[in-house]
């Protein structure tokens, strides 16, 4: 079997006395698109944030291409290979669109500015934001900010993209423009781990669905079997509420 790009082994996370993750073991293959769904407070976002150690797991391990990154001192080097997109965009408000994108490639990968900007422009064109090149983020709509955030992560040429409810903070009319970008990325072969509430989208683009509740993976499967014939009682209950 090909080595998974990300493997978690019995991952635990607690905040003080509160246990959020109770041992999650998941393999994510290169090129796979995995959507994680589950009720609020189920631990799905915490799980995602453990993958690049924005949250430090309290037990278990995370392997990135076979290397345990749980104890690595220089986590920044791994984070450069794992892109992340947040619910609240978190674009840098004090920088223009182009600087948002080129900052990290120039500083951390020592890419010459001209080259970084040419690449950023190509990415901006791909998501329809090239005309915003020199704007500050405050001039952008929510959907545009999120597309910028995606492009900013892509500029580092990551091997995996993590999406943490990327459309939850968007006005309804802007959801589609962001989902289209993610779908486009999925079909280009990018490995994606996507925490989402968009069931229709998850079903459409994913290779696999993970249902997380109470800090464990309750059920996983292909989108079709997951949505049409869920086995676990919790899944059935959850789907009956959201579909």
């Amino acid at each position, binding site marked *: 079997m090909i080595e998974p790009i990300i493997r978690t082994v019995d991952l635990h996370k607690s905040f003080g006395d509160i246990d959020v993750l109770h041992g999650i073991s998941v393999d994510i293959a290169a090129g796979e698109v995995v959507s994680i769904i589950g009720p609020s407070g189920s631990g799905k976002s915490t799980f995602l944030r453990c993958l690049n150690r*924005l949250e430090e797991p309290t037990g278990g391990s995370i392997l990135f291409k076979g290397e345990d990154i749980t104890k690595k001192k220089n986590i*920044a080097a791994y984070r450069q290979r*794992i892109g*992340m997109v947040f619910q609240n965009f978190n674009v840098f408000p004090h920088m223009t669109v182009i600087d948002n994108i080129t*900052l*990290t490639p120039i*500083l951390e990968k020592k890419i010459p500015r001209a080259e970084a900007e040419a690449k950023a422009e190509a990415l901006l064109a791909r998501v329809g934001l090239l005309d915003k090149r020199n704007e500050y983020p405050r001039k952008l709509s929510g959907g545009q900010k999120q597309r910028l955030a995606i492009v*900013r*992560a892509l500029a580092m040429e990551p091997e995996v993209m993590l999406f943490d409810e990327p459309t939850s903070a968007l006005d309804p009319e802007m959801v589609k423009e962001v989902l289209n970008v993610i779908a486009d990325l999925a079909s280009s072969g990018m490995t994606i781990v996507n925490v989402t509430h968009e069931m229709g989208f998850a079903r459409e683009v994913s290779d696999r669905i993970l249902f997380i509740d109470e800090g464990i993976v309750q059920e996983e499967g292909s989108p079709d079997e997951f949505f049409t014939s869920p086995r676990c009682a919790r899944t059935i209950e959850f789907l009956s509420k959201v579909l």
Partner: protein
Amino acid sequence: MEKLIKILIRYYPVFLHGLWGTLWLAAATVLLGTVLGLVVAILRMSRIKAFNTIAGIYIEILRGTPILLQLYFFWLMLPKIMPFKMTDTGAILVALIINASAYISEIIRAGIAAVDPGQWEAARSLGLSEKNVMRRIILPQAVKNILPALCNEFIAEVKGTSLASVFFVRELTTAYKTVQSTTFLAVQPLLISGMIYLIVTTVLSWAVRRLERRLKASD
């Protein structure tokens, strides 16, 4: 009133000289206090426990004892321990800077804490080094929170430096003392010094409010 005008005409260079001293002292205190305060703030926020503790104690001592007492302390101690000749003005300036650094470090810390935590996360998720996260993402945004508070600190120092008159450092309250001792008039020069302080602080406060409005508008 007549005496007041006479003193003003006769001694205005002394007061202007004093005002210049006050502004210079306050500016040097805030500028160098900010440099030192930034170091203290970084130590205070360090994940290394020892740095954290040392910075905490430093801040506690300086904020928990009277500034006049600190001025006496440095005025007595600095000339003794320094290899070169330390003037009174030099010793007092150092004392003012050290005192201000404690307050300013807390201003900086609060300004950094007010930056959206999502900015840290986004910057780290890209793989920026901790140094670049701070320098490129957090500090530039924190400056907006810090700058008005620093300007207010400057206004506070304009008044606070009057304590330096105890050591006859050239500034506005010392100017009052000088004029008072040559004219044997107490109230009039006091009023003149007071008026100058009031004018300067009022103008500065107005400027800070304008700055605050402009910073807000750019959000």
